[in-house]
């Protein structure tokens, strides 16, 4: 089955890296143009899901075991709330980026980038998890 789909395999091998790069572009471009964490996360996950579809879920699992996707999911949320809490600790309000650096502009920049990164991580983690869990829920429960 897989052997007969050699065109798909070749094309997807070629496509997956650009998709991922595009995801990163969308991710880091998000603070001053169209883009952002949600979109980037989904695009990144799409690359991964494509891989899983073509090369089989078992292989995909090797790349992203359950603990990894879960950690990805969790760490994105942690990053997001973490930035907010750090801002609070520095004396600002929750998610008040201006506290993150001395210069106003770069503080805002830093803040939104980190936040978007958190969002991106979580979204991609979530999408991958959803996909993999639907494929093999029981394996996902047992393998660690």
């Amino acid at each position: 089955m897989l052997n007969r789909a050699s065109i798909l395999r070749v094309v997807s091998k070629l496509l997956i890296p650009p998709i991922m790069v595009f995801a990163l572009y969308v991710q880091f471009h998000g603070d001053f143009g169209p883009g952002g964490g949600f979109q980037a996360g989904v695009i990144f996950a799409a690359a991964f899901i494509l891989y899983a579809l073509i090369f089989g879920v078992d292989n995909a699992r090797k790349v992203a075991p359950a603990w990894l996707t879960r950690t990805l999911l969790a760490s994105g949320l942690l990053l997001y709330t973490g930035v907010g809490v750090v801002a609070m600790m520095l004396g600002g309000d929750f998610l008040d980026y201006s506290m993150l650096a001395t210069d106003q502009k770069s503080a805002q920049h830093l803040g939104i980038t980190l936040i978007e990164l958190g969002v991106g991580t979580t979204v991609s983690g979530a999408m991958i998890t959803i996909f993999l869990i639907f494929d093999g829920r029981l394996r996902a429960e047992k393998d660690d």
Partner: protein
Amino acid sequence: METFYGLFNYWIVIVLMMMGFYMVIAQHNLIKKIIGLNVFQVSVFVFYISMSKIKGGTAPILTDGIEIYSNPLPHVLILTAIVVGVATTALGLALTVRIKDAFDTIEDDEIAILEKEDQERERGTIS
């Protein structure tokens, strides 16, 4: 006629909404219900986005020479709503999968019969 064409976006919203709502109510298949739910939610997304459009306005990116642009806030809101919708769908589907495991069917009416049997068994064993 003016109201009909002029407010065409709302008509679309209403048609979508009712279609989705009808699917949720009338379909017995749990997956189809979720699809209906999605159509229902999408109608709201359309509603928000079409509401923010301003005639002749561009994308809300600040560049020289552009005076009129659409309201970006509803887009942001809808982005959030979409995420919520995705989460709901995922959860709904996950539940459906587990219902399939537990009941061996995803037809609403068949599940209702099985549930009734469960209930009678419960009564039977205790009385």
